[in-house]
């Protein structure tokens, strides 16, 4: 799940100030689950913005251009009239809408991470899209995202009583979690395995998957 959180209303209003006709777009997938850009939040935002709002829609997945075309087809005229679009989705969705409409885009949310939803109000980062998944050998725990230093050969000297120095020894040290998981699985030999430096070239440019 792409986890988003609302921007401060003040910031949104500031971006919106020069524009008279606003069209609001929400997201029917991740932002609906996060309760940041579903039907309900789009309605609330429309009420808050007031008279400036000339239309609103929730696209099933604004990051999918095909669904944007499908779900916004019937709002074409209103969209054309809008000066700016206020988007309640992740950055990917907001950019698909920018490319598709050419309109001024006001991001209403900040994209924070790819993560796990435990329950409402309890969201945790679990993947950093490093493009080289190694959790098979780390007990199903990703050191890139769960170790504050992203170490492939941890832990570091900042571990105390199984906790991480970043954040004041409140969060579990990922490498202690990895050790415990591997020990439980009877695969402790994987812990001492040396992992060579990561090839980061695959993240050095905007990534594309073009298979056909």
């Amino acid at each position: 799940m792409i986890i988003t959180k609302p921007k401060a209303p003040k910031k949104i209003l500031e971006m919106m100030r020069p524009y008279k006709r606003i069209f609001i777009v929400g997201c029917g997938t991740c932002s609906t689950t996060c309760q940041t850009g579903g039907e309900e939040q789009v309605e609330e935002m429309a009420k808050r913005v007031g008279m400036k709002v000339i239309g609103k829609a929730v696209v099933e997945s604004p990051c999918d251009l095909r669904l944007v075309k499908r779900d916004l087809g019937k709002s074409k005229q209103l969209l054309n009239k809008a000066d700016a679009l206020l988007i309640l989705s992740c950055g990917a969705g907001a950019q698909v809408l920018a490319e598709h409409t050419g309109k001024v885009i006001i991001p209403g949310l900040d994209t924070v991470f790819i993560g796990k939803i435990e329950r409402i109000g309890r969201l945790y980062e679990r993947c950093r899209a490093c493009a080289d998944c190694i959790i098979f050998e780390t007990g199903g725990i990703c050191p890139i995202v769960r170790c504050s230093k992203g170490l492939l050969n941890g832990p570091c000297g900042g571990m105390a009583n199984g906790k991480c120095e970043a954040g004041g020894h409140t969060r579990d040290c990922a490498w202690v979690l990895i050790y415990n998981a591997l020990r439980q699985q009877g695969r402790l030999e994987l812990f001492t395995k040396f992992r060579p430096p990561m090839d980061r070239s695959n993240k050095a440019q905007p990534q594309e998957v073009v298979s056909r």
Partner: protein
Amino acid sequence: MPRKAYSELMKAIAAGKFVFTGEIQPKKTVNFDDVIRVAKVLKEHVVACNVTDNPRAHGYLSSLAAAHIIQKEVGMEAICQMTVRDRNRLALLSELLGAAALGIRNVLTMSGDHTSLSDNPASMPVYDLDTAQFVYMVRKMVDEGVDLEGNKIDGKVKLHVGIVGNPNADPLEVELLKIERKVRVGADFIQTQAVYDVEKAKGFLKEVQRYPVPVLLGIFPCRSYGVAEFIAKNVPGVSVPKDFMKELKKAEEVGNNSQIKSKIEDINIRYFTDFIKEIKRTTHASGIHIMAVGYESIVKTLVESV
């Protein structure tokens, strides 16, 4: 076959001497005066001296620059600390080449305290390499004369690469396995985090005895009760014995500054002399790393008393 010793530190260890190393912490300054002053105080008493690299992620005068100056101006060998927190592999490579070219022979690899503890907490932590990978890179440079990608380096790289171990780590097994990994990759020496509990120190040294790498055990004399309290609160896992802290506190209660200073020194000398003697007598440690930051005056007395 043991690796060739390029530095005074490694030569002394290879010769079977029980060595002492010191520690200098450059500050947020454009002057070398303080670094040079402390280096002069330490010079006769330690074989080499660590130069810290932005400890607690506070931005200070560079460790490489300070390490070079103490070697050139004071004639004391440096152990240049380098963290992987602030530099990617290109910057680390470049810094190592610079260090080797300047005649620095010892590098201590460290992760570096997390930027959340920084005086510039909005910094991006780098960690392109971790310390095991950093050791791997140094090995390639020294043993094969190439960088990580196999690009040839002009001239012989003469560097020793050290790692840090933490006898206070809990769970200790995790720390030991990590050390094992780094020794396998090719670390030349180990310096440990400060430890006060002699039994804990002995237990740790016994465990790492199975690795064929010399170990310098870290101690941190406290010039005041406040320092001891700071360590107890802020250095991961280090517990400062209650009795030692009580003694320091009591010493500060009566007397003028110089009397207090002398009482505090006595407490430290007593505590650490016994500690070092015990380590020297009962373990295979190659020496003691004295982190007397801001308390360099004690090093002479301490070294001479053992």
